[in-house]
């Protein structure tokens, strides 16, 4: 028995080692084969993984439909941008700003959560949608009478991430390996993403995770179990917002430029789609959903040149094709895999028991 267990841990260690090596090699392999643009797409995908995991806590775990989630991404991004750009002339350290942005976003999460404690379902969705718009419109208009957000022009020249005097905006050469900024950012994002996955996983299997499930299933019964539904719901909003804020801060430094245009309702819905398509409530499914929905639209760009080569002309514009494919994918998913590509245990069971004759 003992040797079996030992073998199991050994094979698990081996598996983790292989994954670690693969994740380390990934940006360089992709750079060499698909080109640097794809490394950038992977970076963005990692940001969306963090966002989707944050929303998954609110929607997937606690069952609170949030349609304004991108607002927390915006708050995190602006918190970083305002304190690390020539706009105010402040250039605070990344290591201070990242937790600060997360904290500010969490505060906004509670700000949204507190007045909506009694709302559920459609009503909550409408209020959160309004919240998302309020944040965006504020960002758009807070350039008068005092210029805080620089309005629709957005904030430019945001500092790149700098850790201990080492700027990620520089290209390094390490024994024949070229480490471009996109590579460095990849590793920073990967570390943050792994951290977020770890925290999410631990939360899911904790008392808090169980309390979220109870609230999602039946709020009245949850409070009859001795669960402080108010605090637990606020915690869900705050945790979700924290991840959004971290992702937003990283986004601001990565892009170097942000404007309210990056935080529209469509972005909120996009993140929600990642959660739903991937498999609401399941960490692996949500990660998969975020990666697919970031990468697939980019892959469709190749459809233009392909049509040109095979058909002699571009019949369907790739950008039109993108929305077409997206809609089609959504409809097909809802028909054939309504619980998502990789559903959580509870959702899978629930749909399995809905078969006729049960």
């Amino acid at each position: 028995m003992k040797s079996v267990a030992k073998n199991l841990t050994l094979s698990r260690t081996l598996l983790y080692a292989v994954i670690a090596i693969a994740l380390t090699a990934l940006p360089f392999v992709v750079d060499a084969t698909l080109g640097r643009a794809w490394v950038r797409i992977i970076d963005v995908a990692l940001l969306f993984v963090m966002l989707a995991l944050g929303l998954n806590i609110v929607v997937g775990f606690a069952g609170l439909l949030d349609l304004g989630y991108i607002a927390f991404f915006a708050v995190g991004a602006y918190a970083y941008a305002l304190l690390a750009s020539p706009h105010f002339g402040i250039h605070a350290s990344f290591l201070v700003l990242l937790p600060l942005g997360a904290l500010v976003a969490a505060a906004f999460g509670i700000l949204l959560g507190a007045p909506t404690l009694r709302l559920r379902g459609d009503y909550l969705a409408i209020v959160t949608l309004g919240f998302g718009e309020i944040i965006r419109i504020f960002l758009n208009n807070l350039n008068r009478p005092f210029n805080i957000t620089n309005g629709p022009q957005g904030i430019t020249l945001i500092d790149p991430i700098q850790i201990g005097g080492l700027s990620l905006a520089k290209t390094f050469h390490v024994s024949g390996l070229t480490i471009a900024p996109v590579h460095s950012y990849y590793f920073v994002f990967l570390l943050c993403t792994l951290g977020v996955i770890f925290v999410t996983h631990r939360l899911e299997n904790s008392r808090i995770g169980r309390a979220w499930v109870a609230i999602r299933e039946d709020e009245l019964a949850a409070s009859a179990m001795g669960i402080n539904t108010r605090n637990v719901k606020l915690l869900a909003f705050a945790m979700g917002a924290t991840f959004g804020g971290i992702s937003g801060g990283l986004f601001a430094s990565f892009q170097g430029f942000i404007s309210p245009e990056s935080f529209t309702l469509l972005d909120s819905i996009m993140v929600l789609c990642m959660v739903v398509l991937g498999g609401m409530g399941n960490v692996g499914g949500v990660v998969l959903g975020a990666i697919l929905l970031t990468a697939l639209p980019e892959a469709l760009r190749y459809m233009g040149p392909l049509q040109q080569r095979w058909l002699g002309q571009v019949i369907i514009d790739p950008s039109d094709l993108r929305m077409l494919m997206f809609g089609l994918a959504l409809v097909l998913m809802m028909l054939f895999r309504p619980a998502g590509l990789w559903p959580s245990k509870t959702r899978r069971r629930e749909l399995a028991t809905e078969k006729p004759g049960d």
Partner: protein
Amino acid sequence: MRGLKVAYGGINAVKGIDLEVGAGELVALIGANGAGKTTTLKALSGLLKPAAGSVRYSGEDITAKPAFELVRRGLALVPEGRGVFARLTVEENLAMGAYIRDDHAAIAADREHAYATFPRLAERRAQLAGTLSGGEQQMLAIARALMCKPRLLLLDEPSMGLAPLVVQTIFETIRKVAREGVTLLLIEQNARLALQTCGRGYVMESGLITLAGDARALLDDPQVRRAYLGE
């Protein structure tokens, strides 16, 4: 557990009532639809804030204390319509009932005890609660409430929507629970069964307590017989 008094307004669903449950007692609160029984229970268990009056429990004022705090003090509620977590298994439901506890060994023992009390649940421990029959769900709701080791258990209409035979089984288990030393306040429309099961009873009508006393005496009361027992 003495001197429970609720009085509250708004739509005046409950217009000032006095109610008392002594330790170890099995008390029934009966009345027709809309008499204010459930409202009373919600006020007792902290789900509603009374507009006036006070609720005392074990010598402590618990008026308008939120429900989750009362559970920690040993006051549990089995809500109307059972309120089991339909998409969780029987076992997960019971685990949720022990949410406030962290003594894992004792929880496991209590779970086995619950399965011994409700053998039907043991057979279906891996099944989703939503797929259980109404009676089984009610058993699960009671078993789940017992998992937090309550001293006072509030039961809201355990017979609602159940077949007469199943209702008999439920009441048997209620008696069994009472024998184990849990104090019970039972809200029922099924007046006869409730009064036969309980030691004392209260009759509620349009937000007021109209009769109170020994359950046997209430069963023989001509007014109760006419209004609630259909004679």
